């Protein structure tokens, strides 16, 4: 009995039966009708999901035979694993989606039957194996859709609905014609039977049949440019209906394509091109879109294009075994995310993207939106991430670099418009927080959770060490659950958990990984300690901080390129969200995300081509790459250089580093930025050391790029009034030296790189934390508004003093060792010009560093600042640790250089020799211990003399107001401050060199992309007849493309 009820055929019978009964029942009792409606939906979901579980368990697929006659003489349905999966997903979306249509259902009972029949039609499209029957189900689905389009009686909805009907009815006419021609040729309507008689599908009729069938299905998937009607519908119909069309109807159509693809052998390149063109064009056009629903429509269309491309390419390459992961991943990802977003768009009901300001004050809403968008943009751990990863791997392995490029560019564009929208939602405006009924969030919240769950399932299914890569995500979720606790408690929890997790990780690492284990994890822990100085709750900050810190650990633990990329993306996403918490950050977060994603995609492509050659995703196997070594190395290096802020690719950096919250800026610049250095060294270690191909030329270019960054960073830092911006540009410059040192590719070079990295971590962490205290106390970031603060913040003054000596490369502190090693390495390599530029750039650096002391701490104190107190000791404590480290490494450089040299042991010939405390190279020697003693002596003697004299001489201390002011009162007094525009004379001299060329270039790129979008979208005239014409053109185009003319 129960078995009988659960038979898959009931998916059709129940929906159809109840569907037609509902209007009758509604006449006597509307509430019974509604109850029956919900009950039926639950029943449908139950059947499909019970079978899904059984089929996963290994039960055989169900063949449904109709009329008691075997196929091909009667229609048969097939209910296998894929079918059960798609039908269950669609039924689930249907049942949750009807939640958002309740009001419509109440006013008209008939719409409930139409809705049930729509669900049934989609199930039929998925299950049937008979081509004509497929046509019937396409039409049933279409008719039911038309019925739902008329739910909303606004003129715009009706107009859009009519256009939709014209286009889809033309498409199904083509499908019918194609079906009949195939029947004519093969004598059967059964798809499996047709596959046995493929040899009969020949000649012009065969070609025409194929073209008509393909167009009939493809048009349902809304290919560019024959899709204006679909977008109009997405824009105007109720959100619940739009969601159902976007995920349900499209799922049916896509499954139909999946079924007929084997019939279309020769057409596959054309199908791929159709998908690729749609994906790229729709995402370009999406850039111009400010209407939320239409934008989601473009994204839907694009995703269908991507899936079409993936399906065709996998069959072309003969890799149909990857269909499950690639298509399955992309499919379920899109279904959950897009349905959720459409529903959310309906719940919030603000048509324009810029009207979503204020969502930030509805944390649950914001988290749901964040999860859905992250999934759609392909971030881990969501299923789309895994699908896209495998797609790129297979495209690279199949030597289709063009398609790799298309997929990555399209994804970048899609992320651009999705996250621009999210940027509005992140804006701080309490008055505009939307009012939302909490119950309305249940379905969409369920889908957000399902995305997390399916992401986990895929990771598990892939046989990855799923728990390990997912640790950062879990950490984020757990901490988010505890977000109600007091701020400091949460901070202690994050730091404690991180310490417990990171300690064994570092202990288990060796070589380069061990070195960066110390830099990223120990350094990260010390600098993150500063978050304790704030006692407020900082909602959302600690979960993200946990995610960020733990993803640094995963990055080091990664043994495969997949795990590395996973951690890299989590790092990107958590940094983005953390930066977005900064008060002035909103103009900069999109730029940050775009460049970070660009970098991630370059890295992904690099990993892809490496996999293409070696067939392995192990990081260690990167060194086996030979043929494509240069390409892989270039892609990886370029990717990491973006994140290192190399000149020209740095435009994201100043805004992000300076506008993030003050304590997070320190972590970002000192620690997170070092992940890029780790990546560069990792790529170089595996690919560059052997110097195959043109890698040495690449390294030579990189060496110049690093130094140009050093110079540009220093020059830009020179003219900043904003103290954090100064430090941001300084980071860019200092990382430039590290890049150059890596490019030297010798023991000296890499030891210099490691040394500079540690040193940068120490002094930049120190300076950013000191500045955090300074900004926190003074409430300003502009240096000319400070001055004379040495007495108020003496400890901070000492921190800054030590920091700038350590940075500037003069003895006795650590900076000197770094410059000495770098110059040695450059001279040793014979790169004299680079050495000269390095020397010059560090002289420029000295000029801006001087301002930090001179403008901020010396000179006249502002009246308003006279009662300022020292920064919190919780902020000072990590600074003291960093100072201790700097001093220790300055006195005993061996402590630092030995471990660094040992972590690169065996890669290069030894070039460093220790003689006691003296370090010798081919070119000279340096004795750090002796240097610091001499310097200490040189300073101590005059100090003692002065102290001695001050006791006996008559000294009058000059007080602040002992000076005489001139009689004038200028209009804008701050501009007369001596520290204002301090280096204007250099600015005059260097003016033409300092134009923001890179920013102008990237603005141009952005504008051009928008222009491409505008150009592509002129085809959408809004006229239904034009759209019908495009559908007809599409037939002709496909016909020509598959060779019908030749």
């Amino acid at each position, binding site marked *: 009995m129960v078995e009988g009820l659960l038979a898959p055929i009931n998916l059709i019978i129940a929906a159809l039966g109840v569907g037609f009964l509902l209007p009758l029942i509604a006449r006597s009792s509307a509430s019974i009708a509604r109850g029956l409606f919900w009950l039926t939906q639950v029943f449908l979901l139950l059947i499909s999901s019970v079978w899904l579980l059984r089929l996963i368990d290994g039960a055989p697929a169900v063949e449904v035979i109709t009329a008691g006659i075997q196929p091909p003489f009667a229609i048969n349905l097939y209910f296998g694993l894929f079918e059960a999966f798609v039908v269950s997903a669609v039924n689930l979306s249907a049942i949750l989606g009807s939640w958002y249509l309740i009001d419509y259902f109440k006013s008209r009972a008939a719409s409930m039957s139409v809705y049930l029949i729509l669900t049934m039609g989609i199930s039929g499209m998925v299950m049937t194996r008979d081509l004509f029957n497929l046509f019937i189900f396409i039409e049933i689905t279409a008719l039911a859709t038309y019925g739902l389009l008329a739910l909303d009686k*606004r*003129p715009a909805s009706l107009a*859009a609905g009519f256009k939709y009907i014209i286009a889809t009815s033309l498409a199904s006419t083509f499908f019918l014609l194609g079906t009949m021609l195939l029947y004519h040729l093969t004598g059967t309507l059964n798809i499996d039977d047709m596959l046995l008689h493929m040899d009969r599908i020949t000649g012009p009729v065969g070609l025409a049949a194929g073209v008509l069938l393909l167009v009939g299905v493809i048009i349902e998937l809304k290919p560019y440019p024959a899709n204006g009607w679909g977008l109009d519908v997405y824009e105007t119909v109720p959100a619940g209906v739009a969601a159902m069309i976007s995920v349900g109807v499209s799922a049916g159509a896509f499954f139909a394509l999946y079924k007929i693809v084997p019939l279309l052998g020769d057409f596959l390149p054309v199908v791929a091109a159709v998908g690729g063109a749609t994906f790229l064009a729709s995402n370009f056009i999406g850039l111009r879109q400010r209407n939320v629903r239409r934008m989601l429509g473009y994204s839907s269309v694009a995703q269908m294009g991507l899936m079409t491309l993936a399906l065709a390419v996998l069959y072309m390459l003969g890799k149909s075994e990857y269909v499950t992961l690639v298509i399955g991943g992309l499919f379920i990802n899109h279904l959950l995310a897009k349905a959720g977003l459409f529903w959310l768009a309906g719940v919030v009901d603000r048509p324009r993207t810029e009207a979503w300001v204020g969502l930030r004050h509805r944390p649950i809403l914001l988290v749901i939106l964040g999860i859905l968008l992250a999934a759609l943009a392909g971030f881990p751990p969501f299923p789309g991430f895994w699908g896209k990863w495998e797609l790129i791997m297979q495209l690279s392995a199949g030597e289709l670099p063009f398609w790799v490029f298309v997929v990555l560019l399209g994804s970048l564009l899609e992320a651009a418009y999705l996250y621009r929208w999210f940027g509005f939602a992140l804006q701080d405006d309490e008055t505009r927080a939307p009012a939302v009924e909490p119950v309305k969030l249940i379905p969409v919240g369920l889908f957000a959770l399902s995305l997390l769950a399916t992401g986990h399932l895929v990771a598990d299914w892939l046989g990855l060490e799923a728990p390990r890569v997912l640790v950062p995500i879990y950490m984020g979720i757990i901490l988010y659950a505890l977000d109600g606790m007091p701020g400091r408690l949460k901070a202690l929890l994050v730091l404690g958990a991180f310490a417990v997790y990171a300690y064994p990780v570092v202990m288990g690492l060796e070589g380069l990984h061990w070195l960066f284990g110390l830099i990223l994890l120990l350094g990260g822990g010390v600098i993150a300690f500063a978050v304790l100085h704030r006692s407020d709750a900082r909602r959302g900050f600690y979960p993200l901080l946990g995610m960020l810190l733990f993803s640094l650990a995963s990055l080091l633990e990664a043994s495969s390129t997949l795990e590395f990329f996973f951690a890299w993306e989590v790092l990107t996403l958590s940094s983005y969200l953390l930066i977005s918490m900064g008060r002035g950050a909103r103009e900069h977060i999109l730029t940050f995300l775009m460049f970070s994603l660009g970098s991630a995609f370059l890295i992904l492509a690099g990993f892809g081509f490496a996999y293409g050659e070696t067939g392995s995703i192990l990081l260690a196997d990167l060194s086996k790459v030979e043929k494509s070594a240069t390409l892989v190395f270039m892609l990886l290096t370029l990717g990491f250089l973006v994140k290192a802020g190399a000149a020209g690719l740095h435009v994201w950096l100043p805004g992000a580093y300076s506008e993030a919250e003050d304590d997070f800026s320190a972590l970002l610049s000192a620690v997170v930025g070092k992940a890029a250095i780790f990546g560069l060294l990792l790529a170089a270690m595996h690919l560059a050391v052997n110097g195959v191909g043109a890698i040495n030329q690449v390294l030579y270019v990189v060496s110049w790029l690093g130094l140009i960054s050093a110079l540009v960073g220093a020059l830009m830092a020179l003219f900043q009034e904003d103290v954090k911006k100064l430090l941001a540009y300084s980071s860019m410059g200092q990382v430039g030296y590290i890049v150059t040192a890596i490019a030297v590719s010798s023991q000296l070079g890499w030891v210099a790189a490691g040394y500079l990295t540690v040193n940068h971590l120490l002094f930049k962490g120190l300076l950013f934390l000191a500045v955090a205290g300074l900004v926190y106390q003074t409430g300003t970031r502009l240096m000319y508004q400070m001055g004379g603060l040495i007495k108020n913040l003496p400890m901070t003054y000492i921190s800054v003093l030590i920091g700038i000596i350590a940075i500037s490369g003069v003895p006795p502190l650590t900076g000197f060792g770094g410059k000495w090693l770098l110059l040695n390495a450059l001279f040793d390599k014979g790169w004299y010009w680079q050495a000269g530029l390095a020397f010059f750039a560090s002289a420029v650096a000295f000029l801006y560093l001087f301002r930090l002391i001179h403008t901020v701490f010396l000179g006249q104190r502002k009246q308003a600042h006279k009662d300022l107190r020292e920064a919190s000791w919780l902020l000072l404590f990590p600074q003291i640790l960093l100072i201790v480290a700097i001093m220790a490494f300055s006195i005993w450089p061996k402590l630092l250089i030995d471990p660094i040299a040992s972590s690169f042991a065996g890669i290069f010939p030894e070039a460093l020799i220790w003689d006691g405390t003296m370090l010798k190279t081919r070119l000279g020697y340096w004795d750090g211990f002796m240097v610091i003693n001499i310097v200490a002596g040189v300073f101590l003697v005059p100090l003692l003399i002065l102290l001695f004299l001050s006791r006996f001489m008559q000294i009058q201390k000059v007080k602040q107001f002992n000076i005489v002011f001139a009689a004038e009162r200028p209009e804008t007094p701050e501009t007369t401050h001596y520290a204002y525009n301090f280096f204007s004379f250099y600015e005059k001299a260097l003016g033409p060199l300092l134009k923001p060329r890179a920013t102008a270039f990237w603005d141009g790129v952005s504008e051009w992309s928008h222009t491409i979008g505008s150009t592509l979208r002129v085809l959408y005239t809004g006229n*239904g007849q034009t759209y019908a014409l495009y559908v007809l053109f599409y037939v002709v185009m496909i016909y020509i493309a598959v060779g019908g003319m030749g």
Partner: protein
Amino acid sequence: MDLPVSTITLSTGLALLLIGMWGMLTQKNIIRMIIGFSLIDTGVHMIMVTIGYLSGGTAPIINDAVDRLTALQDVVDPVPSALVLTAIVIGLGITAVMLAFAVQIHDKKKSLSIENCTESKW
């Protein structure tokens, strides 16, 4: 001139298809566009029937008039005729929905021109 029935139905079907398309693409009036669709639909149905037709064939009823062994060559294929019935019903349904939309559009806009249906674009 000996013109087989199948040639006549096929060419009529194609002609109807093309006239219908011409109508859908050129007529601004929604009702006329719907008529165009009906013509396309009818054309397709005629083509479908033609596909199964066999010149000079007999009705697909296996009785004394038809030799069971050569039936495959002698009788008209019944499947397309059966399918066309379904297709006609579906075509009718779609035409009805289209007309319903036309009524609604006329109610709201007091116009039947497709050119007035361009609220959303780009």
